[in-house]
């Protein structure tokens, strides 16, 4: 599938047994394992959902409008990421840097929002050891936030490498692999947003 406005990037065959880049395959294997990691955190959250014996309870403190904006910010960062990849694949390093910078900035905005949310919850009496909701919520969303943080460091590293001439359009696959990680962080949030925030308690 290709747009009328831009020629789609044609994947190239690699000289490997499968014809697929080993690095890319390794990243997909990691993402498959990370599915299981987050799957474990999610089922623990779901099992203990609604079983807290004392407050604060989720329906008292979850802020849906605020988190909806955070979710939109992360979705927008995914668009910026894929546009950055398109830029480097087509040899446009300036466009690559601008969109990758936007991705990292939106990721940082999401992370800042999460920090604010955690702080607010803490002021309302919710801590890691307060009740089952606090334990499972902070562990699940905290590990997701950690993933976002690692992603931001990765993206900034790529920007710096390109500025110092260590990253060129020939290295587009490095950006594609970072992009896979970043989009994965986004899809995990899509699931968390629904299961933790939107499904009524």
């Amino acid at each position, binding site marked *: *599938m*290709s*747009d*009328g*406005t*831009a*020629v*789609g*990037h*044609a*994947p190239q*065959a*690699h*000289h*490997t*047994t*499968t*014809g*697929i880049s080993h690095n*890319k*395959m390794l990243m*997909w*294997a990691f*993402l*498959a*394992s*990370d*599915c*299981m990691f987050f*799957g*474990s955190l*999610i*089922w*623990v959250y*779901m*099992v203990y959902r609604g079983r807290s014996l004392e407050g604060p309870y989720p329906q008292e403190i979850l802020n849906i409008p605020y988190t*909806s904006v955070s*979710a*939109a910010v992360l*979705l*927008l960062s*995914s*668009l910026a*990421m*894929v*546009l950055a990849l*398109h830029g480097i*694949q087509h040899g446009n390093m300036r466009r690559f840097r601008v969109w990758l910078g936007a991705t990292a900035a939106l990721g940082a905005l999401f992370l800042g929002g999460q920090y604010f949310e955690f702080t607010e919850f803490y002021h309302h009496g919710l801590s890691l050891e307060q009740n089952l909701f606090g334990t499972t919520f902070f562990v699940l969303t905290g590990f997701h936030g950690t993933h976002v943080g690692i992603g931001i460091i990765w993206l900034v590293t790529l920007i710096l490498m390109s500025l110092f001439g260590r990253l060129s359009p020939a290295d587009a696959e490095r950006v594609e692999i970072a*992009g*896979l990680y970043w*989009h994965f962080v*986004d*899809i995990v949030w*899509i*699931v968390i*947003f*629904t299961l933790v925030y*939107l*499904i*009524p308690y």
Partner: protein
Amino acid sequence: MQQGQPVVERAHPGPVTYVKIAVILAIVTIIEVATYYLESFFGAALVPILLVLSAAKFVLVVGFYMHLKFDAPLLRGMFAWGMTVAIGITLAMLALYKL
């Protein structure tokens, strides 16, 4: 398969498709949040609706932004395997502890 043999991959989409997907994702998110506020209207159908909308967003991001729709079937299989195990364990644990 011989080394270096071309795999079945198709060209990735361009910016116009990516922006269209972003618009669809934004609309689905708005519908999700609106559905949340109309809980009394949807009743028991609320949870299935939210899960379907969430799954739609998930598939769009994986298919178009992660290019799994266009990349080699082997990669789809690897990710599907991880997802299947994760969903299977989640459902098994929910059945074990909730039912």
